[in-house]
C-alpha cells in the first residue's frame, strides 16, 4: 500500500499505458479477458488518483522525479533537470473527472461496441487516452506536457475515425489530427522559446525564473492559442462538431474530458507559469472574450442541428464558454486582492465546478445519444420519435442530462451556473445576462431534442426497438445519480475538490516552492 501511494503519480499513468500495449495480445486470449484487463487498468489508475487526491488534500503539493534515486529528489543542486511530476489540488481535481469518465466509458463500450471488430485497437487507444490525460494534468514539465498532448491527440484521432467504413469518420479523424498537430507544434515552439532563454522546462522553475521578455510573452500567446484550440473555444471550435459527432458515443464522452485537459493546461499556463506577469489580466480578458463567443455561437449553432451528436457537440463548445468566462473573470482580477476576495475566487470556483459538472452531464448525454443510435441506427432527430415508449430509462437519463446542462435546479449544472452568474455579475452585469440567455437557449435546444427523440406517438419503423442492455444502462444510471447528487449536495464537490483546486490556482508560490 505504501508503495502504491508513494509511486502513485507514475503508476496512474504507467499501468494504463502498459495495458494499452497488451490489448492486441490479450485480444487473442478472448474478448472477456481483454475487457477485464482494460477495466482493471483504468480502475487501478482511479485508485491511484484517489490516493493522490487524499495525499494532496492532507500534505499539499506532491512531487515525483521520474528516474531519480528517490522520487523526492526533484531539485538536485537547485537546478531541476529531471522529468518532474507535480501534482496539486487542481491536477487531482482534473484527474478525478478524467478517470471517472474513462472508467464509465470503458464499461459502456464493452456492450455498445460488442458488434464491432478491431476492439483490441479500440481499447488500446482508450487506455492511451486515459494515460495521456493523466499525464497532462500530472506533469510539471513543459516538454512532457507536449508529449502527453501528442499521445492524447493521436489516440483520440484513431478513435474518432474508428468507424472507418464511414467517410465522415475518417474525415473527422483527419481534421482532428491536423488541427491538434498544429496546436502541439505551437506548444513545442513556445517550450523552445522558454528553454532557449532559461535552460529550463520545469514549469515551477520557469515560473520562478521568468523575466517576461518579448519571447516569453510571445510564448504565452502561442500557448494560450494552442490550448484554446484544444479546448474547443470559438472560433477555434470547428473540429469539435466533426470529432464529437463522428466518434463512438463513449469516445465522445472521453473527448469531453480530453478537451478539458487542454483547458487545464490553459489555466496552468495563465495562473502558474505567467501568474506574476504584469498585465496578466489581459489574458483573463482574452479568455472572457473567447468564453462569451463560445457560449453564444456554440448554443446558436447547437439549436439548429438535427443530428443529436452534433447538437451535443456544439453544446460542449457552449459549456466550455462558461468555464472560460468564470476562470477568465478570476484571472482578469488576479492582481487585485480585494476583487479576488469579493468575486474573483467565486468566479474561478464556478468555472472549475462547471468543468466537473460538464464532464458528468455531457458524458451522460453522449451515452444516451449512443443508446439511441444503438437501437435506432440513426442520429437524425427528424427520423426519430416516440422512443420513450420503448426506452423509458434512457429517456429519463437523457432528461436528467438535459436539465443539468440547461442549468435547471436541482441538478448539478444549476449549482455551478448560479455561482458563475452571481460572481460574474459583480464584474459585468452584461456578461452575466448573456450567460443566462445562453442557458435559456440551451433549454430550448434540449426541449427540441427530447421531444424529437423521445416524445410523440410510437413510430411504425421502431417496431423492434427495445431498451438498451444493462451494460449500457448502468454507466448512464451512475452518471444520472451523480448529476442529481452533486446538484442536491454541491458542497460535497466544492469542499473536497473545487475549493482546494481554486486555492491551488491562486497560490502560485506553493507550486513553485514545491520544486525550487
Amino acid at each position: 500500500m505504501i508503495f502504491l501511494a508513494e509511486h502513485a503519480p507514475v503508476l496512474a499513468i504507467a499501468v494504463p499505458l502498459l495495458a494499452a500495449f497488451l490489448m492486441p495480445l490479450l485480444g487473442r486470449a478472448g474478448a472477456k479477458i481483454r475487457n477485464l484487463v482494460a477495466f482493471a487498468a483504468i480502475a487501478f489508475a482511479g485508485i491511484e488518483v484517489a490516493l493522490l487526491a487524499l495525499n494532496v488534500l492532507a500534505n499539499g503539493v506532491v512531487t515525483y522525479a521520474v528516474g531519480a534515486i528517490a522520487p523526492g529528489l526533484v531539485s538536485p543542486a537547485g537546478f531541476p533537470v529531471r522529468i518532474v511530476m507535480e501534482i496539486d489540488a487542481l491536477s487531482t481535481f482534473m484527474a478525478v473527472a478524467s478517470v471517472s469518465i474513462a472508467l464509465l466509458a470503458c464499461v459502456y463500450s464493452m456492450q455498445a461496441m460488442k458488434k464491432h471488430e478491431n476492439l483490441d485497437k479500440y481499447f488500446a487507444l482508450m487506455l492511451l487516452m486515459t494515460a495521456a490525460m493523466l499525464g497532462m494534468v500530472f506533469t510539471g514539465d513543459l516538454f512532457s506536457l507536449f508529449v502527453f498532448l501528442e499521445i492524447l491527440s493521436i489516440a483520440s484521432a484513431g478513435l474518432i475515425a474508428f468507424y472507418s467504413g464511414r467517410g465522415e469518420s475518417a474525415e473527422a479523424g483527419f481534421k482532428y489530427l491536423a488541427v491538434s498537430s498544429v496546436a502541439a507544434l505551437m506548444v513545442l515552439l513556445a517550450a523552445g522559446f522558454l528553454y532557449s532563454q532559461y535552460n529550463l522546462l520545469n514549469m515551477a522553475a520557469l515560473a520562478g525564473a521568468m523575466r517576461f521578455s518579448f519571447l516569453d510573452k510571445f510564448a504565452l500567446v502561442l500557448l494560450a492559442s494552442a490550448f484554446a484550440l484544444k479546448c474547443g473555444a470559438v472560433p477555434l471550435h470547428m473540429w469539435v462538431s466533426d470529432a464529437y459527432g463522428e466518434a463512438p458515443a463513449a469516445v465522445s464522452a472521453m473527448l469531453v474530458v480530453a478537451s478539458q485537459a487542454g483547458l487545464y493546461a490553459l489555466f496552468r499556463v495563465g495562473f502558474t507559469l505567467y501568474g506574476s506577469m504584469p498585465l496578466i489580466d489581459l489574458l483573463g480578458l482574452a479568455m472572457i472574450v473567447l468564453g462569451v463567443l463560445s457560449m453564444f455561437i456554440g448554443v446558436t449553432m447547437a439549436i439548429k442541428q438535427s443530428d443529436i451528436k452534433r447538437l451535443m457537440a456544439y453544446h460542449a463548445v457552449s459549456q466550455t464558454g462558461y468555464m472560460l468566462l468564470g476562470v477568465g473573470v478570476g484571472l482578469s482580477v488576479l492582481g487585485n486582492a480585494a476583487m479576488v476576495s469579493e468575486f474573483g475566487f467565486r468566479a474561478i470556483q464556478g468555472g472549475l465546478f462547471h468543468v466537473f459538472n460538464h464532464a458528468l452531464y455531457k458524458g451522460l448525454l453522449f451515452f444516451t445519444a449512443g443508446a439511441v443510435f444503438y437501437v435506432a441506427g440513426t442520429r437524425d432527430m427528424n427520423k426519430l420519435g416516440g422512443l420513450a415508449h420503448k426506452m423509458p430509462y434512457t429517456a429519463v437519463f437523457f432528461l436528467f442530462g438535459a436539465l443539468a446542462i440547461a442549468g435547471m435546479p436541482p441538478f448539478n449544472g444549476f449549482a455551478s451556473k448560479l455561482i458563475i452568474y452571481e460572481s460574474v455579475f459583480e464584474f459585468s452585469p452584461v456578461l452575466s445576462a448573456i450567460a443566462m440567455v445562453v442557458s435559456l437557449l440551451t433549454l430550448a435546444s434540449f426541449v427540441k431534442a427530447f421531444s424529437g427523440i423521445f416524445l410523440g406517438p410510437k413510430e411504425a419503423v421502431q417496431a423492434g426497438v427495445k431498451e438498451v442492455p444493462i451494460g449500457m444502462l448502468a454507466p448512464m444510471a451512475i452518471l444520472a445519480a451523480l448529476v442529481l447528487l452533486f446538484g442536491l449536495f454541491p458542497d460535497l464537490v466544492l469542499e473536497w475538490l473545487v475549493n482546494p483546486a481554486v486555492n491551488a490556482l491562486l497560490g502560485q508560490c506553493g507550486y513553485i516552492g514545491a520544486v525550487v
Partner: protein
Amino acid sequence: MMIETGAGFWSPLAMVAVVGAVAIAVFIARSFGRKNAGKDAGQALPFFSGNVVKDARIRPANMYWGFFEALHDYYFALKKMHSGIVNDYFFWFVLVIAAMAALFIFSGVL
C-alpha cells in the same frame, strides 16, 4: 447542503422540499376534479382546424422556425464560417494568434 454565491445562498434541499409541498397540493386539488376526464374522451387527440391529423408531430427541423427566420442573416454568416474546410480552421487559428499578439502589443506588454 448549501452554497454561498456571494450575493446570497442556494439550498437545493429547501427547493426540493418546496417543490414537493406544491406537488402534494396540486395532487390534492386534482383529486377533487372529474374522474372521467382525459382517457378515451378525445381530449388527448391532435386536431388541426377540426380535421384528423395523421402525423401530428412537429419534427425537430420545423421547430423554432420564427427564431431562425428572424436571425437569418446571423445564421448565414455562421454557416459561411463553418465551412468544414481544414484550411479555414487554420485561418481562424492564425487570426486568434494575431489578435492575441496584437492585444498584448497595443497594451504595451510586448
